[in-house]
């Protein structure tokens, strides 16, 4: 993935004082961070650290209890429709309807995102994920990996500038994983901003510019992946989270 963009541009994603509680339980505790345009950020942490909750809030699936999120300078809550248009998301759930064909699924999402030249764009995306031949087959007849490929096509359909990946590699074979990371680079001269959650430290080292380690809803460490090797990252991770190596 590419390195961070120019510091003079406003951040792609800016999070200030982000807090989320479920009843009395605080899942995220006043988080502050920002991601520059074209930068890729890995969110690491043990199970229950709050990674998925954070990603769901960034995707506007969940409301934060307190705090602000700005997407390219726009308030995520106030300008919900405009900001959501800039976001694509791939999770372990595909967001696809099993009883519809791949084409019908992509066409449905294209209508929601008001994608111009729908037919051409769907064909482009299907070719990119290597699913052109199966475009008119039902999703329910696909393997998990094939469904995930269509899910990647769905997420990129509207040319988002920000990609959120939550354990996105689940079910993908090596070829599809390589395709996913190739797609994350962006289209044309535009570099995508990528925020991913993962347990795979090696992947985060290869694919991202920076990392944040979350533990019990707090950012316990953040830094650049540039000068780190896997061993150093593992050491940092285990020291920060107090987990066993």
């Amino acid at each position, binding site marked *: 993935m590419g390195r961070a963009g120019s510091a003079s541009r406003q951040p792609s994603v800016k999070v200030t004082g982000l807090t989320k509680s479920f009843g009395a339980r605080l899942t995220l505790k006043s988080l502050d961070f920002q991601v520059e345009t074209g930068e890729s950020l890995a969110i690491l942490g043990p199970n229950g650290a709050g990674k998925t909750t954070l990603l769901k809030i960034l995707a*506007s*699936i969940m409301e934060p209890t307190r705090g602000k999120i700005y997407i390219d300078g726009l308030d995520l809550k106030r300008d919900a*429709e405009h900001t*959501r248009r800039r976001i694509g998301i791939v999770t372990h759930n*595909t967001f*696809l*309807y*099993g*009883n*519809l064909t791949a084409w019908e699924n992509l066409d449905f999402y294209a209508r929601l995102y008001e994608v111009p030249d729908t037919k051409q764009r769907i064909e482009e995306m299907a070719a990119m994920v290597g699913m052109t031949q199966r475009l008119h087959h039902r999703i329910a007849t696909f393997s998990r990996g094939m469904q995930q490929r269509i899910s990647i096509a769905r997420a990129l359909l509207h040319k988002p500038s920000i990609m959120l990946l939550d354990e996105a590699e689940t079910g993908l074979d090596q070829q599809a994983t390589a395709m996913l990371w190739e797609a994350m680079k962006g289209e044309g001269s535009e570099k995508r901003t990528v925020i991913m959650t993962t347990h795979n430290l090696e992947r985060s080292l290869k694919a991202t510019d920076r990392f944040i380690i979350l533990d019990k809803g707090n950012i316990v460490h953040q830094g650049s992946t540039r000068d780190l090797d896997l061993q150093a990252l593992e050491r940092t991770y285990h020291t920060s989270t107090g987990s066993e190596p």
Partner: protein
Amino acid sequence: MSFWRKVYAITRKDVLAELRTKETVSAVLVFTLLVIVIFNFAFGTQRDIIEKVASGMLWVTFAFAGVLSLNRAFVMEKEEGCLEGLMVAPVPREVIYVGKMLSSLIFMFLVEAIALPIFAFLFNLNVLTWQNVAVVLLATTGFVAVGTLFSALAVNTKAREMVLPILFFPIVSPVIIFAVQGSDLALSGAPWGSLFSVMQFLIIFDVIFLVISYLIFSFVVEE
């Protein structure tokens, strides 16, 4: 226009999926026909009893068939996290509500369009009068308007088949009560004038349920 285009996309998607599987309409239709046939066996040819209980039979059938249908409305959205897919899209939450409500309404109207002639045939009752059809259309709209909201609420619970009727029936009971009264008047051949107050109440409940459900839907679907 964008609002209605997106509503259409959601309704079209639901109808397309239903045309593939026929899961909701066939299950609801079988249930509806079963109830009508059981009532037919129970009351046989006792004309005076049938005339007294006909509107009750009709709405017992439609109310339970409606719950069965509404129970399934958000199941598809729950599989593979599709509801989250809708929520991430640049679509106001209200679009999701209206789109889902319209598809449920189409399924219910379809079931009723098949059930009413069968009801008329088995009980030899004229349930296909304009008056009764108007009562059915208005009551079903109110029923589905609030039912879609509760369906979205219940789908996140483990025992949704049980939770939906428990939450939903106390709220929707005014619509069912007026629907029974309206159908009773319509079946007895009453003119439009005597149905006026019932229709008025059904329209008021429709508007109230539609507006409230529309306004609070986003709070129901957001975690």
